[in-house]
């Protein structure tokens, strides 16, 4: 019991010492491992302190390299990293060392973190056609019932084939329409069978295919479309995105 109490006391003392090194850890406390580069520390030194003094201070952890960054700041690389709190404690009070901190990681804020969830068999092509009717502009519409699917299916296939069986409790159907096109040769194709969801918005990748220049094309107005089965849930809207990342249409399930 006494041994356990001693251990607790040692732990508390270490925690307090780590707290003393708050200047190193910063107001938000000990950094997560992913927020710093292991084995790299930045030292703010007194003007008179040179690399020898810094090497000496970090010697216990095996100094690989000391680099002068200017403005009395030095980058130190060590072989055996005991963690920021232990380093701060270890160099505390050493002449010439004013502060030490990890070499923190910064990331560009141009690409919001994506959460790509892949669901096996998530998106399935039910039908593609070049004459689907509908409006002149690109659009996407949600079909949430067998009755709705029957109506659209007849518009695409007539009554030759029965519509596929869809479990509308777990899945829905999305009709992506290209809108009115002046000739044949236009079509839509599913570009990714996954349905990545990011903060409530699902992305459905569809290639917007146009006729190659110079090719002979049927001089007929076309209205291409793509009928897709998609899983329900986990998103508020589906954005139909082409291969250039352009949002062509948006649909909300209901």
């Amino acid at each position, binding site marked *: 019991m006494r041994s356990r109490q001693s251990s607790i006391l040692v732990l508390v003392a270490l925690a307090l010492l780590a707290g003393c090194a708050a200047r190193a850890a910063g107001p938000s406390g000990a950094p997560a491992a992913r927020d710093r580069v292991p084995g790299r520390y930045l030292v703010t030194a007194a003007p008179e302190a040179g690399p020898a003094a810094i090497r000496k201070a970090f010697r216990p952890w095996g100094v690989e390299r000391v680099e002068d960054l200017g403005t009395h700041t030095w980058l130190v690389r060590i072989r055996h990293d005991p963690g920021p709190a232990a380093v701060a404690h270890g160099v505390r009070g050493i002449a010439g060392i004013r502060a030490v901190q990890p070499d923190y990681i910064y990331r560009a804020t141009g690409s919001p973190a994506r959460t790509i969830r892949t669901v096996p068999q998530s998106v*399935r092509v039910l039908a593609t056609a070049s004459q689907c009717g509908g409006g002149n502009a690109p659009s996407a519409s949600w079909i949430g019932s067998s009755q709705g699917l029957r109506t659209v299916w007849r518009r695409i296939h007539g009554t030759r084939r029965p519509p596929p069986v869809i479990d509308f409790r777990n899945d829905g159907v999305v009709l992506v329409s290209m809108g009115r096109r002046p000739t044949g040769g236009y079509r839509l194709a599913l570009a990714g069978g996954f349905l990545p969801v990011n903060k409530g918005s699902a992305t459905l990748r569809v290639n917007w295919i146009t006729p190659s220049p110079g090719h002979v094309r049927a001089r007929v107005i076309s209205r291409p479309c793509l009928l897709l089965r998609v899983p329900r849930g986990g998103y508020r809207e589906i954005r139909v995105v082409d291969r250039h990342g352009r949002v062509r249409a948006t649909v909300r399930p209901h």
Partner: protein
Amino acid sequence: MKPALLVFLVLCLVPGLALAGSHGRDYVPGRILVRFRSGTGAAMQQQAVQTLGGHLGPHIAALHVTRVNLPAGTSVAQAVKAWSARPGVAHAQPDFIYRPLDTTPNDPDFGQQWGLHNPRYPGDDIHAPQAWDHVTDCSDVLVAVVDSGINYTQADLQGEMWNGGSSYPHHGYDFVAGDNDPQASDGAGHGTHVAGIIGAAGNNGTDTAGVCWHARIMALRALGISGGTTSTVAQAVNFAVSHGARVINMSLGGSQYDQVLKDAIDNARSNGVLVVAAAGNDGADDDSSPTYPCAFGDDNIVCVAALDQSYGLASYSNYGAKTVDVGAPGSTIVSLWPGSPLTGFQSWLSSSTSQGNWGVIANSCTSSSQTYILADPSGTWCAGGTSTSSNDYIYHDYGFASPSVLGIGLQYEALYTTEGGGTGYFNAAYKAGGGNPFDPINPGTQLDHETGSTGNTARAFSDDLSGCLNQSSCTLGFQMHTSSAAPSHSGAVVALEVLRSIQDSNATQTESGTSMATAFVSGIAAMLYAYNPHFGYRDVITAIDRGGVADPALAGNTVSGRAADAMGALAYIQAPTGIKASVH
């Protein structure tokens, strides 16, 4: 109160009037236009010139006016009064200056740049065309872009870069590699995109228009393709300050309080340098979960949230009633890109595997016939089934011998579940010079080595492939190592892009983030400095904050509750700080 002072105050209080007044003359100095009465002969005209000074310029027959060039020291107002009183003169007036209204550039992608001018939701933009009636050239203002490097050969940036002289011939510095070439050598496009928003050459019939049509951009590479560190970022800030930057764009963030970077920002403040920083993309409250440098609290920092196309707060944007200053366009922003990437797996169809166990297949995970992935060719594993043949690798040879390739990087997304007990792993590697990157005797360079499981959520990876530069053969490969007794362990690469920076690229790209919003504000700041060279950073921040457009989405989510607005900021006039004036 003296009438003149009253008029001055009224001008100051009415932004539109103040803008016109502050811009100085609205007529050409040193000359006026005179219409002589019919029958007024040349002798009488010459007599007037001899009396009043100056000399007659060309007669514009279509307008029945003659241009009169004034003698030195004569004001236009004096001359108009004197000439109007001369016999034989029907009318005299200044030669007024007319400027185009709502200037729009001829750049082909301008129509997609909703942040500058938003035809879909009119007014939800920074009102750039109105601002361009007054300022398009910010090249007197040095803007440092602390970022992932810039393809300074990009067609729309070539003429807009800082001249660093013989010490910095490539327009900046690379603190990641430690040399003076901040080219995006790992193909990362973020810095080029940000620079394009600030200062892509405008009205030149190429690509996009920047907030400033002419700029002076210093490229400071502090981020590699997967990020940077305190040491690279703080050095870049200090470099910018010591080489004369007035604006530092920091489209980046970290989650830890960082005294070394704080010291660098303080140094910028001491030198009067404005720092524009991104609020972050976590959809979080910066007041309680701070992002740095935004949250340092220095008064020379403007912290920027991102807005979508209808001026709602973007779903990913951080916010903060105490820490985030303004919003700006951030979602689906079209700007410059260092080069077109190589995408997809079509070119991998004839790739090498050791046992034929990996392959490029139609995506049977999802029953789609268009998507190709790299996986166990049976495709059953990623559909929730098992695999008995995942102990293999696949690699593909990309050649990058062309000198026009200036940077190469890799972004891919992978699913994997590896075998435990130290047996299984997922690897990515490349080999400059070609050959099997997983050759046990002569291996290539390892990029990623992963164990564990991604579950059904693909994990994104970014890697530097600059080691492939100038290599006529460079192989890129993926490897799964499992034992045959582990059928539930396998992997798939579900998306792949080889990023490239290309000489004289004219590529563009759509990106989203608070980074993009930050760049819009940096551009506006450069405009303000160009228009008001005597402004200090406090004047610029005040103009941006108070000249912004009130946006309900930002009320309570930012300090100002406003969206940054170029025209509003230009029109928001206050006496510059640091200048003493007296009224006599």
